[in-house]
């Protein structure tokens, strides 16, 4: 009897729990906007809108509706205007790709991007409530050039002796023209960060195309010997200092980078290849044929004593 009561209580508890789970459904988008004030005719940019849900117990069907008169066909949604977020995924990145036609007129275009999460259908005699979120669209097309960037990361990787010091910058181009820092200046300190051992401009930087994110590498030749150093990095945007930071790096002996158990990977591949080729040819009995083709004949005779 006690067991039956416990079982009933347990069932009631789970029923209440599951009914509570089904009581409400949450959905969010981040950021809730597709804004760009610096477009020019022919420009292209991509933005990620992350779709989020706290309880991804089941797959979630998503529908995207673009309500943007005049500019609807500028948009492409990846993975599509209708897709399913697999169960277990709390954050799903949705790419919004905008291509401005070359003949687009100078104007500010507005609209809405509605993203709906369609849960399982409601029961009979009920109104199922669908949850969604709206991202505002505002795109300004003009003929004005705009140059700006945001630094998203800086690194000074280890180098081999004699190689230039590298400053690797992750940079997001916010403008409609290609961009790179206007200047990168380095002061190299000893391992204690005390005395300056070398300083100078880091040059040879590549460009980042409009509205793209990528790596810019600046290099500075040096005569540093093997050891540990600090690099004080100054990064400038249009002459204005935008980053001042100290990063540690090592100068190692020539050929020391990229080694596996003390040796370059290609040496391991070479040895593995030689052994594999040997075994294969042995198994396929190709040695005799190959030697015969080369005109090599091996004759073994008994040594007469």
């Amino acid at each position, binding site marked *: 009897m006690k067991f039956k009561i416990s079982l009933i209580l347990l069932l009631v508890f789970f029923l209440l729990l599951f009914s509570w789970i089904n009581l409400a459904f949450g959905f969010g*988008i981040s950021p809730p*906007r597709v804004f760009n004030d610096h477009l020019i005719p022919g420009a292209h940019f991509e933005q990620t809108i992350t779709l989020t849900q706290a309880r991804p117990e089941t797959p979630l069907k998503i529908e995207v509706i673009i309500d943007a008169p005049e500019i609807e066909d500028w948009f492409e949604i990846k993975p599509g205007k209708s897709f399913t977020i697999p169960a277990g995924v709390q954050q799903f990145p949705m790419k919004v790709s905008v291509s401005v036609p070359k003949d687009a007129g100078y104007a500010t275009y507005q609209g809405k991007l*509605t993203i709906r999460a369609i849960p399982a259908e*409601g029961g009979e005699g009920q109104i199922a409530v669908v949850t969604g979120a709206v991202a505002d669209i505002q795109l300004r097309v003009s003929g004005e050039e705009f140059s700006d960037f945001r630094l998203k990361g800086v690194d000074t990787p280890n180098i081999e002796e004699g190689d230039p010091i590298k400053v690797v910058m*992750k940079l997001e181009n916010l403008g409609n023209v290609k961009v790179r820092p206007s200047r990168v200046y380095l002061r190299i300190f000893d391992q204690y960060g005390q005395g300056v051992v070398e300083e100078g401009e880091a040059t040879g930087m590549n460009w980042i195309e409009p509205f793209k994110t990528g790596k810019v590498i600046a290099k500075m030749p040096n005569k540093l010997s093997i050891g540990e150093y600090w690099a004080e990095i100054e990064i400038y945007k249009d002459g204005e200092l935008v980053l001042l930071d*100290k990063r540690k790096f090592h100068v190692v002996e020539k050929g020391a980078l990229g080694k596996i158990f003390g040796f370059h990977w290609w040496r391991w591949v070479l040895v593995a290849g030689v052994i594999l080729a040997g075994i294969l040819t042995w198994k396929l009995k190709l040695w005799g044929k190959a030697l015969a083709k080369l005109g090599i004949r091996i004759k*073994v005779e008994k040594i007469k004593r």
Partner: protein
Amino acid sequence: MTEKVKKSIPWLLILTLIVLSCAMGFQLGVPKIKADTNTVTPTVTVGNAAPTVSNVNLTPHPIVVTENTTTTVTCTATLTDTNGGNDISSATATIYRSGVGSNCSADDNNCYKVASCTLGTASGNDRPATCTADIWFHAEPTDSGTYEGETWQCEVTAIDSQSATGSGTDSTPPELEAQNAITVTASINYGTLSPGATSSASEIITATTTGNAAVDVQLSGTDMTSTSTTSTIPVGQQEYALSSVEYGSGTDLSGTPAPLELESVKPTTHPSDQSDDIYWRIGIPSGQDPGTYTGTTTVDAIAD
């Protein structure tokens, strides 16, 4: 004997190639130790050097919160102590909105304290540290709104065996993005009504703000369709309001989304402290076919 020699040839060739490979590439260096015959026994007291912190990096970049729950962010750093990396005994971190500063008091809206970071294996004077924090959905955004122009920052503090400390922050800190999110009751059940009757009481759905931005909603719906016949109840027969009003005093639901301004503001705690009840009533047209009708109502979060 002849057969044995023949069988050995490939192996001899393989062995030769391996030896050649090693000779070409694997130049094993033997450390050279110089013996010094004139030894002395010097005495020196090594002082304690305070640790330094560099290469601080808070990810992801940007930070995106997850509605109604937490999201893990990671802050990595290189801790350096010239007494040796193993002299670093622990590390702590503060992950915060830049405007409140690293001396902030713990607050799930803008300041997260990491009491203990995970220390990696020391290599020379360096020791890597990894600090994680679970950021709540109501953490303050910096890409728009009140704190636009600020960032989310991470300050890592290294502590050595002598309790000397050193700190460092991320030189390229990320934004924390705004999120429009709501959690809404999953269904509305009007019960059983006669043709020509209207709801005697309101059905309530609760819209709870579960992102980090204040939101309003836009409402739309579809005609209700019979599960057994082709009859429908037009969508406009349903009405909504922010309080329980008589049928006829609410706003008719439509197939076109219509905004409804909520009183909620940005949540500041969890579970969310910001929610609004939306009251629903329905009027059944006279002569409506009997049956069970179902439909869909859409609640979209829109910018406040």
